[in-house]
């Protein structure tokens, strides 16, 4: 019986790392692992060995629903000419400093 290499047996996981308190988790990359626990540990070893993070999320790649690149015309182009959706038509009073 020939064993499959782990990459074929083990699911792919997406890894999200939070670099510092107060920041968001950001996508760091993907890796193979047998289960969630191993995925967290692999992520720790692969993506945080140079002090990159303080918190790790993992999710199996198959659970991510992605938009379809073929639909980008329909999805994104209509926003191009809706300039009024940007908050650039307000006059801010001089007293307001921090917006």
């Amino acid at each position, binding site marked *: 019986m020939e064993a499959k290499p*782990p990459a074929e047996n083990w699911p792919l996981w997406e890894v999200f790392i939070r670099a510092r308190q107060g920041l968001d988790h950001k996508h760091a990359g993907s890796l*193979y692992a047998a289960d969630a626990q191993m995925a967290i*540990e*692999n992520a720790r070893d*692969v993506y945080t060995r140079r002090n990159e993070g303080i918190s790790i999320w993992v999710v199996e790649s198959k659970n991510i629903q992605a938009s379809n690149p073929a639909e980008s015309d329909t999805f994104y182009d209509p926003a191009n000419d809706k300039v009024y959706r940007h908050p650039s038509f307000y006059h801010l009073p001089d007293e307001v400093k921090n917006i």
Partner: protein
Amino acid sequence: MDLLSTYILHQADNALIMGHRNSEWTGHGPILEQDIALSNIALDLIGQSRNFYQLAASRLNEFAPGESVSEDDLAYLRDVNEFRNFILTEQVNGDWAKTILRQFYFSTYQFLLYKELVKSEYPEIAAICEKSIKETRYHLKWSSEWVIRLGDGTLESHTRMMEAIKLLNPWISELFIPADFEYEAAATGAGILPDGLKEEWFHQVNKVFEISTLPALTSEKKPMQILSGKKGVHSEQLGYLLAEMQFLQRAYPGSTW
């Protein structure tokens, strides 16, 4: 060499030889992620050994003014019979199961030891262990989980774990037989006697073995004790390891990066 320096060297040698063995997996791990995991552990251990070697070197230089011993001299220019590491640590890697089990046995020991040594009356030893114990706790977690995965995995992985248990069994008892330098360390408050860790070591190992569906180890077995790494009487495997690890400094003395 004074006994307390030997005690420190014993800690250094264990970490270095274990680290070197693990580093032999670098580039050969079963999967990229685990290759990196084990390489990280190798680096942790070699880092720990550096701290202990530096401490030993500064002691040796203090006692013998005029001599100048460095951490590199201690790691790269001592011969087999001068090394004080456990026979367990020098055992060849074998398959993944054997490497995992060796790490698990060693990390369990090292964790229990460091837990005591953070209270050492020798401040430098306490400081090194304080820093190292976080790494060791991770090594223990990582290796425990692998023991469980393999033991409670497939028929093949279970069989390989059973084989690894058989192969490493003879080298367990050495961990707990006190050497002269350990009596000295315990007497001065710098260290402890390892037989005090024995019961807890077996308890911790067997707890993981139970989850792993592996048979419990018993501490009653009395294997041959002709070899003793702590006394410098090593298995032949250490010679090959040192030949490779020390090659550069032997062939090109004093060479640096």
